[in-house]
């Protein structure tokens, strides 16, 4: 019996700790950026108003971030399979339009329509998945097309901004009395951690790592992709419902901005667009970073006209920082 030697991989704790740090660096960086930015926000707030942000401010931040959180987690799942989902904006449009026009102020109507809207989102997501996996089309093309279809449907359901969301629905989802929505964030995070450890989660990562290899390992690649896109559609619909609850009205184009913010949150969260690498927890942090950033720019007295200029600048610097740190850690580990 021989022993396989190997080019001695030192396994003492220092090195192991360091490699764990290098592995999770993008995630840690996302939370570090969120922490730093939040500190800047609190500082600016205090400087301007001579008080600390209170329950109202935190509630508003959490409720504003919530739709981005949901859609970004869905986007993460698709990006992990090495895809991209542009149709999330259309799903949010349609969800918002349907909720504002259909929902009545009764428990049955609110629950019924919520479930129906979630089902519609998941169905469109599954359609994306089928076209990508079985039709072997490029994800960017497929979801660009379904985005347009969904936008059209949304405008048909609600040609002009209007409609009403029942106040009790708003209170239930986006309780203005306190940052209760954090519970939803927690639930999403828990759901993610479970997904990560479920069979489907491992399969999603495997596909993103190497689709050929996944197939060779007997993973049903096409079915898993359909599930991934369906989850993204489902979460985008949930995002649309939450957006409806916070805006209390309907606008068939309100979801369009979330196409790019969901991608930006994924980028900030350190999830690799080459697939197979990253955590939705990072995307959640990224969603909050984008929301807090808006507040920081406001308190810093930046002309709203220049907001996207600074948002873009911030994004580039953050991503560059991540890349440089990663290279340094890997180089020395």
């Amino acid at each position, binding site marked *: 019996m021989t022993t*396989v030697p190997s*080019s*001695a991989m030192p396994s003492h704790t220092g090195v192991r700790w360091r490699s764990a740090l290098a592995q999770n660096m993008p995630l840690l960086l996302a939370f570090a950026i969120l922490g730093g930015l939040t500190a800047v926000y609190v500082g600016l707030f205090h400087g301007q108003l001579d008080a600390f942000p209170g329950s109202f401010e935190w509630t508003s931040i959490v409720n504003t971030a919530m739709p981005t959180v949901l859609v970004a987690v869905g986007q993460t799942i698709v990006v992990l399979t090495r895809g991209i989902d542009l149709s999330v904006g259309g799903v949010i449009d349609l969800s918002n339009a349907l909720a504002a026009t259909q929902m009545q102020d009764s428990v049955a109507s609110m629950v019924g329509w919520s479930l129906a809207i979630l089902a519609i989102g998941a169905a469109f997501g599954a359609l994306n998945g089928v076209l990508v996996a079985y039709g072997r089309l490029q994800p960017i093309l497929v979801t660009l097309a379904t985005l347009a279809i969904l936008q059209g449907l949304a405008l048909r359901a609600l040609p002009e901004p209007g409609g009403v969301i029942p106040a009790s629905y708003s209170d239930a989802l986006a309780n203005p009395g306190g940052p209760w929505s954090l519970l939803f964030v927690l639930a999403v995070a828990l759901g993610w951690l479970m997904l990560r*450890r479920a069979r489907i989660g*491992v399969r999603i990562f*495997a596909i993103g790592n190497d689709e*050929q290899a996944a197939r060779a*390992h007997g*993973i049903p690649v096409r079915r898993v992709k359909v599930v991934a896109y369906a989850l993204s559609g489902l979460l985008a619909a949930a995002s649309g419902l939450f957006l409806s609850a916070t805006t209390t009205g309907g606008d068939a184009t309100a979801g369009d901005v979330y196409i790019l913010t969901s991608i930006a949150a994924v980028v900030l969260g350190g999830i690799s667009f080459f697939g197979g690498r990253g955590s939705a927890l990072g995307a959640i942090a990224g969603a909050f970073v984008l929301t807090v950033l808006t507040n920081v720019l406001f308190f810093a007295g930046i002309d709203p006209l220049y907001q996207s200029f600074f948002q873009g600048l911030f994004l580039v610097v953050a991503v560059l920082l991540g890349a440089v740190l990663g290279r340094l850690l890997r180089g020395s580990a």
Partner: protein
Amino acid sequence: MNDETQDTTAAAIDAVGVSRSFGGVTALAEASLSARFGEVHALVGENGAGKSTLIKILGGTVKADSGGVRIAGEDVTASGPAAARRLGVGTVFQELTLFPWMTVAENLFVGREPRGPTQLIQRRKLARSAEDVLARFDVHGIDPRALAGSLALAQRQVVEITAAFMREPRILLLDEPTSALAENEVEWLFGLVRRLRDEGACILFTSHRWGEVASLADRITILRNGTNVATRPRFDEGEAVTLMTGRTIDRMYPDRPAVDEGAEVALRAQDLGGDGLHGVSFELRRGEILGVGGLAGQGQPELFLSLFGARKLSRGHVEISGERARLRSPADAIRRGLAIALVPEDRKTEGLMLPMSVKDNLTLAVLGRISRAGIVRRKREQSFVEEAIQRLQIRTRNPGVQAVGTLSGGNQQKVLIGRWLLAEPDVLLLFDITRGVDVGTKHDLYKLVVELAAQGKALLYYSSETEEIAQLCHRVLVMREGKIVSELSGPDADAEALVAAALREEAA
């Protein structure tokens, strides 16, 4: 062949008249193969003979265009990898199939992770089970929590092999499992293979190293141009080579021309130091083939890359034709008449632009010389390309169109070398140019090396096969831990002496 009819055991693998082509290129033409349980069956042939394709068809990842495949008696011609797995087929492919951004433990257990009552994967148990598995297979020094992509190539191959064996396959397909392994790791693998065979499994493997085939296989099937030409328990090497190539190679290694004592020193390395190099000095004359030997990973790639300006030197200097040369980048090296043909461990990344044409790949390094005012002169380009194809005997149908990626491995390597020959360098650094290529191509390459030396080129030559260095080189520098520990020449430099020199101090 002789006692097939008396065979009472069920055939583990029974492929009949299997054909498959990829975009007009025939990989398999009516190939048949039969292998029994309880035997180790070797599949040998040149690059492009169809070995890998046949293995992929047996593993279910590629489907046959025509013909029939039975695994353990069941018809699987139209089934996928899942069916093959169900029938107990395990595979180690030539292209590694580990997930780089997942841990070793996750890779070992993909699809069969330990689960708790909630159906969720138990991470801690996963790592512990992986530790157990690695220990059970005598694999040491690999951390199950490390990302697969962070391992060295040999370690990745060891993980891949372990993953296949731990599933206790009844039929195991190994496509060039040893190409990335060191000798002791090869011994380890062979031990596992023999044990599995003695337990009644069927193992089908491919290798370009005849010694391995002869020592491990119970039966050998030879493929040529996509068809099986013979199956027997034993062949002598010459006969096998003839069957594989369709031509007789009477002498593998050509005679090397003598080196003129007074020949100019083309390359002088003086006390080179850097990452992995510690004070390396030598002289290389025109017309000389200077071998670099030693065990794998003793600083040889670092030396080649440093000389080519692709790695930083912290100490020492290089003289080219008596002049001190500062080589800060490959562009510097090329300007000074140096060229390198380097086939890295992982052949996937061998420096060719796979989707680009043979022509474009060949002329990449000489674009400046074949163009005027920035415009490529077609005629000149054409003659350059033709010359290279002619000289290296690259098998290509249409060099202007055919993508390099569709050539067989041996022909790809020829293109890589051809690119540098066109640049007409004085000094050629040849690093493992015969890795993973078949005997016919090897023979062509040896002839080329000797021919270049006869023309007065200076050649620095490294190979992972010691025999090759011994047969081809005028002198050999033996490296250990980034230093040159001895120099052998003439009759002293036979393969045994080289191995002894490489190991000498380690035994002490």
